[in-house]
């Protein structure tokens, strides 16, 4: 049984649409998984010990005349 050219054309068109939709789905899933990795990386920074010490630099640093140590907030 032979298929008509218009049916063949329609089949090709539907196949391409299905192909594109599958690919777009995979691309969106890939981008989402990369972004989840990115967020995981950003929020998994190492924890920092809380310090209440007043920063008192000593030793060798050379400070400008108007320098006053800034209190540092550690998370």
């Amino acid at each position, binding site marked *: 049984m032979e298929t008509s050219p218009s049916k063949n054309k*329609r089949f090709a068109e539907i196949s391409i649409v299905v192909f594109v939709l599958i690919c777009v789905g995979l691309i969106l899933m890939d981008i989402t998984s990369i972004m989840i990795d990115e967020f995981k990386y950003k929020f998994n920074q190492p924890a920092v010990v809380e310090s209440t*010490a007043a920063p008192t630099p000593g030793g060798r640093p050379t400070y400008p005349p108007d320098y006053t140590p800034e209190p540092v907030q550690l998370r």
Partner: protein
Amino acid sequence: MRTRKLDRLLGAVAVISVIIAWVIGANLSGRDIYPSLQSAVPSANHFTPVNGNYAIMGDETENSLMGYVSIASANGYGGPMKVAVAVDLKGNILGLSLVQHKETPAWIKMIYDSGFIETLSGKSYLDVFKIGEDVDGITGATYTSRAIAQAALEGGRTVAGSQLGLELPAKAVPQIQFGLPEITLIGLFAMGFFGHQQNFKYTKQARWVSMLIGMIVLGFIYTRPLTLSDINKFLLGFWPQWQTNLYWYLLMGGLLFVFTVDNKNPYCEWFCPFGAAQECLGVIGGAKSRSTGQSRNFLLWVQRGLAWLAIFVALLFRNPGLTSYEVFGTLFDLKGSSFQFALLAIVLIASLFIRRPWCNYLCPLRPVTDLYRMLRKWMIDTWKQALAKTNVSLK
């Protein structure tokens, strides 16, 4: 006429939204630096800003200075990286930590897993930090490891010079990297130029030679196809050092020049490595250009929408490679996620029956070139209209 107006309206919306994403991304990019400092020197008690660097204090007494941390920058594959480089009082590296980067998380994981960062600890500010000489690079993350080594060098020398008062060795002038990829690229541009000439008899043959060279040299050997990441880097202003990235400048500059002057696409049909791979499969399977009938517009806008989304998100997060969804590296370098391997398999199978399915329906570069051409024509039309109006009013 109506379609052209709609195209122009949507094109303008795309450009404006991308500019908005750029501005928002630029304002959101700052982040707290202290966790990275602590990560570079876990034994530190606290840090104090000193002349643009940070003094590392071992405990709460003023004589506990352990060294300094400098925040150094270098260009990775995806864009600039910021690295916290901790240096002791003799000018040796105590530790490193990534503050900010634009690399694909998989590459960063590769760097962490390989222990590359730890190998830089203990190195002196006098060392050259050159991959292949005194530092071992990481295969598959060459640009990233090179950038971290470069940042370690810069950070170490900044601390040694500005905080410790040590004499610095002369700064090495970066060597211009001009090799086979650059020569091939120039040759392919030249071949495309002559191939496009109307009186050139062997256009078809020249195109196949160009495609095969592109696929083998730029694809399989060097894995340097044009990707959305390159376009994003260009838009974000993450332009790498020209001496070590001449290829990128030749590719981007060459394409912009030809598009602007000649309105022709010298890349996609002539030497895109992935396009060539699809055409080779197409020859095997007898692939044809298929008519998409009534779905033509739907498919066109899906492709454009996907490209817009990818650029918008990349600019918003200021990370060029974040949404670069091409599967070029998956084919040429056999690297990628399971989604990318599945996508590659589907595209390659489809290439046997449909001519260049990726290029025609999915590639983000086509909407970008369409938009560029439309804006170019719009500007020329506006210019001509303004010129005609001026002439009429003068008469």
